[in-house]
């Protein structure tokens, strides 16, 4: 068992409200990712679960039992810190052994467990070194080993891959997913990298300014963002948002364009809206009726694809295109829109209007 449930977490540091009623429900065995930009309250949430910070209000339940006031040691959790927090005076062996020493395991058990972990994470050769003699990737593995060496209720990970270079990060992503699957344990994983979130998570909670914006599977968060802000944060290149309003059977853009109104768009006429269009739902090739006129603003070749920036009125649309696409800035072109996959948001509240009708 390893469920983690937090209810109405509030925490402020001086005048800054870091957490404002955060409620999350992490099921047993889930790879649960808390995603958000820096300053969203992700780390504070994790520290609240771990019991490292005192809360202003709210509760933490572990395996269904109230653990709000419990000391960190009593919560039976393991954590990987963003800067790893390896004990500088201890060898790698002693770092990994630390959770077992705290629990007074016999030295034979400890030696066996550390050996098993070092094999799993390929750090056998490093056991007698000290943290200062390790590279970033090695430190990360040792920190991971220290967390994994026992079987706690849940693993808490605070941006463990942020300090690694890109290649290593991709490698460790796969490794972590593999470890999660083989252990079947609960992971609560904090990151500001939406690629990490989408690729590793069973469930994603998107956090912003101390409030949960949306909880769902990666697909849900990507395909049905709850508000314009989630839509803008998840996905790369970011979603393009165009100001418009509904008029009868048409959507009329602030820049003067018109598109047929999608059947699912139930917004009342005249209301200020934002039309959200993802790069892959747009095309510079002629493929359908719905299209927008614009001019080429720039090209971003990314190897496997090219992102075409198209200016429509004063707004920029990001359009995914074949890597072979060519064009000169200023050139007039039409962008085909897949309206069935478009999103509509209320411009005032930012909330999605496309959820129910689809």
């Amino acid at each position, binding site marked *: 068992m390893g469920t983690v449930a937090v209810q109405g977490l509030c925490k402020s540091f001086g005048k800054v409200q870091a957490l404002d009623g955060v409620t999350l429900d992490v099921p047993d065995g889930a790879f649960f990712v808390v995603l958000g930009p820096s300053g969203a309250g992700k780390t504070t949430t994790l520290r609240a679960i771990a019991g490292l910070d005192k809360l202003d209000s709210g509760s933490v339940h572990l395996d269904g039992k109230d653990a709000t006031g419990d000391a960190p*040691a009593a919560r039976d*959790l393991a954590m990987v810190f963003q800067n790893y*927090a*390896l004990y500088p005076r201890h060898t790698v062996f002693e770092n990994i052994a*630390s959770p077992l020493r*705290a629990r007074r395991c016999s030295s034979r058990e400890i030696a066996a467990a550390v050996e098993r972990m070092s094999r799993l994470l390929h750090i056998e050769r490093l056991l007698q070194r000290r943290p200062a003699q390790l590279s970033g990737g090695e430190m990360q593995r040792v920190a991971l080993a220290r967390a994994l060496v026992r079987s706690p209720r849940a693993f808490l990970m605070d941006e463990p891959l942020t300090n690694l270079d890109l290649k290593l990060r991709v490698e460790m992503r796969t490794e972590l997913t593999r470890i999660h699957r083989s252990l079947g344990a609960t992971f609560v994983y904090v990151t500001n990298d939406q690629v990490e979130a989408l690729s590793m998570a069973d469930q994603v909670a998107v956090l912003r300014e101390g409030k949960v914006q949306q909880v769902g599977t990666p697909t849900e968060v990507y395909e049905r963002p709850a508000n314009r802000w989630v839509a803008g944060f998840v996905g790369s290149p970011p979603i393009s948002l165009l100001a418009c309003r509904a008029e009868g059977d048409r959507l009329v853009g602030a820049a003067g364009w018109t598109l047929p109104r999608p059947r699912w768009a139930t917004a009342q006429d005249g209301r200020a809206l934002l039309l959200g269009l993802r790069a892959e739902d747009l095309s510079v090739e002629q493929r359908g009726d719905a299209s927008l006129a614009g001019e080429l603003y720039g090209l971003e070749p990314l190897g496997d694809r090219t992102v075409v920036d198209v200016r429509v009125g004063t707004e920029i649309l990001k359009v995914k295109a074949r890597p072979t696409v060519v064009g000169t800035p200023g050139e007039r072109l039409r962008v085909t829109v897949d309206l069935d996959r478009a999103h509509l948001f209320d411009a005032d509240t930012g909330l999605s209007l496309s959820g129910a009708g689809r």
Partner: protein
Amino acid sequence: MAVSVDKAVAAGPARDRPPRVRRRGGRGRGRSLLEVVLLTVLAVVMLFPVLWMIETSIKENRDVYAIPAEFIGFTVTLDHFKDVFVAGDGGRSALSVAFLNSVVVAGVSTVLATVLGVPAAWAYSRFTLRAKKDQLFFILSTRFMPPVVVVVPIFLMYRQVGLIDTKLGLILIYAAFNVPFTIWMMKGFVDEVPAEYEDAAMLDGYTRLQAFWKFTLPLLVPGIAATAVFALIFSWNEFVFAIFLTSSDSVRTAPPAIAGLIGGTTVDWGLVAAASVVFALPVLVFAYLVRRHLVAGVTLGAVRR
């Protein structure tokens, strides 16, 4: 062609170099000459009394009063050092008792200040406390005035509670002066140690105090050493409270005891000098042992905030 071009290019800087080096060297020599002169003057001024003290301590009494004074070529004797420790009748001298008292008072008060101050510094560094800055300012404010200002009130209070002329009284007052200093200096050191080590240790299963004891404290040892030496030097050298609050030979510490040697009809300057040498040695040895930490303590621990 290519060779000559290379030569021409190489020759340019080469021609330039000698005068530039000379200019630079000349300026450097000028500055260092000034430095050497100033440092020599300073060294003479600072070291002459020390040298004089050491010389006097190993001169025979008639050489001490010789006019003109003998810098070299006097008879060397260690009798004064013997007199520091051994009384005329062969028993322990009053000075040696005073030195022992100094060791006890300075040592215990330093240990007390460290034991109280280090955990306090840790708490001030790690926890959010109500009016933390005001508390820290209040603690520091006890060091704003010269200690002599409170001698009379302390004397009256000590008389009430019977701490006059006791080693415990001196230990307590020295610890009271050293605790604020320890807290402030140690807080700088604790701030330098990331709190994450303790967080990690608590998640490993240790209590907060175990986390501090096992993981943070070892990293603070250099800072503690530097802080303790400063506290030790303060307690060791302290004169005002010692002379006001103690009177009997069995309690008195070395500074008032040495001062007490002067003022009779005849002054045994050799004994005064020998006692002073013995008194200065421990501080020098300690300062030397922790010299690197002292610098770290001065620049890092105390300066921050």
